[in-house]
């Protein structure tokens, strides 16, 4: 069988070009070269796979020119027709982690090539990409390189061969939120007793099923000057332009809609409706302002009570009335609201 062809992505530091001062190094394809951590992968692969090219890119360059860097690197990867793409590992380097996550995601989803990266669990790249990618959990510094490669290489080969991927604890990746079965070494009752003994003696223990997120975020300071504030509307009640152009699903929607309110004085049953399947839609369809109060906010805007109603609103559909879901894409539109200098948000839920 032919060897699996691998393209490896690393930053300027691991390419031994330099540290922070060289972080603006643009993306570069080095065909036939195996650099830095690549040698460790190469020996871990044995006869199974070979690195055919290494892509080097400075972390600042990538993050500051993200669209161009991504496009350029995708072209470089494509040109090598690899069977597998590996980025990093990035350990605890934040911008490197974000770059590895971004490019691994792009190679996987845009090129359809099996792809893998690795980083420390607290790397910001984990929060952004853990639910979309296999990210091998590594130590927090390059001292953990050997251990990282030892876990990444076999998982990468499995991905390249399209084999079934086991549970996160077995394969060594950071949990993706997808539950995967496997056989433990001890039976469940023994594991429960062991866990209780740890809990009783205040030793750390790891639950096998983390409960949904119960963390709290501290409140932001109040709006000081409402008369000049830009207020945005967001709803989990699924109000969308009639016909639901973005096909927001009727429950636990997998995406959100961004809609323009420019020139909209009030919502009406002719132009808006609800996509939410979690409540009787009659009242919202009859008068969508009952869920998204555009009419009132326009009036308050005219009277000068608020400075401005933001000209975009965001809409999605929660799981029933539980608006806890949808964390990932909420973070995404929260960034957009921030970029648009929104001062405060009214979130309506059914």
């Amino acid at each position, binding site marked *: 069988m032919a060897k699996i062809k691998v393209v490896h992505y690393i930053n300027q530091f691991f390419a031994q070009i330099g540290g922070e001062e060289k972080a603006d190094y643009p993306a570069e394809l080095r065909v036939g070269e195996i650099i830095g951590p690549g040698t460790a992968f190469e020996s871990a692969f044995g006869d199974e796979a070979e690195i055919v090219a290494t892509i080097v890119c400075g972390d600042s360059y990538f993050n500051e020119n993200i669209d161009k860097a991504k496009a350029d690197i995708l072209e470089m990867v494509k040109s090598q027709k690899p069977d597998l793409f590996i980025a990093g590992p990035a350990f605890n380097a934040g911008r490197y982690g974000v770059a590895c996550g971004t490019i691994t995601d792009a190679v996987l989803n845009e090129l359809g090539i099996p792809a893998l990266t690795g980083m420390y669990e607290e790397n910001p790249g984990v929060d952004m990409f853990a639910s979309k990618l296999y990210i091998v959990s590594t130590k927090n510094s390059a001292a953990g390189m050997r251990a990282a490669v030892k876990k990444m290489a076999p998982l990468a080969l499995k991905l390249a061969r399209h084999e079934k991927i086991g549970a996160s604890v077995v394969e060594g990746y950071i949990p993706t939120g997808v539950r995967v079965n496997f056989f433990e070494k001890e039976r469940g009752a023994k594991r429960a007793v062991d866990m209780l003994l740890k809990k009783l003696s205040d030793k750390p223990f790891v639950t096998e099923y983390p409960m949904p997120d119960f963390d709290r975020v501290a409140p932001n300071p109040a709006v000081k000057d409402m008369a000049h504030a830009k207020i945005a509307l967001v709803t989990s009640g699924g109000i969308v332009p009639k016909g639901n152009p973005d096909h927001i699903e009727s*429950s*636990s929607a997998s995406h959100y809609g961004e809609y323009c309110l420019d020139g909209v004085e009030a919502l009406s049953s002719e132009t808006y409706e609800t996509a939410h399947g*979690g*409540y*009787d839609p009659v009242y919202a369809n009859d008068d969508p302002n009952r869920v998204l109060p555009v009419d009132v906010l326009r009036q308050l805007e005219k009277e000068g009570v608020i400075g401005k109603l933001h000209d975009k609103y965001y809409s999605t559909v929660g*799981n*029933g*009335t*539980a608006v806890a879901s949808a964390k990932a894409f909420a973070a995404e539109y929260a960034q957009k609201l921030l970029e648009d200098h929104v001062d405060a948000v009214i979130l309506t839920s059914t």
Partner: protein
Amino acid sequence: MLVIITNNPLIQESFGSTYTVDYEALSYDDILIKIRDAVHRGASILTHPLYGSVKPKETPYRSVLMEMREGPVDMDSLLLIEQTIASAGKFPNKSAGYDEATLNDCKIIDLSLLQGALRSM
């Protein structure tokens, strides 16, 4: 007012004289939505809608005892019905191919489970 919302005709036959039975020939999903809408109007659920370990849609029948009210939403009932609808969504509809005898088994189990619950009232 206590009402049994059900799509099991046997409930009407067995409890019709002692309880108010709101029977409608609805699907498993639709009977849950009917319960949900009642909860949204203020009704309380008294028996767990995910009763029985016969998996959702492995039986086509659901019968739930409710206290019908209009007014503020009962939080526990709301969570319960929403969790139930979410759980039911995970299961494919298996009961479509059932013959009469099997449907009858399903009706009797449904009746028995509700009977068990009503006994403890």
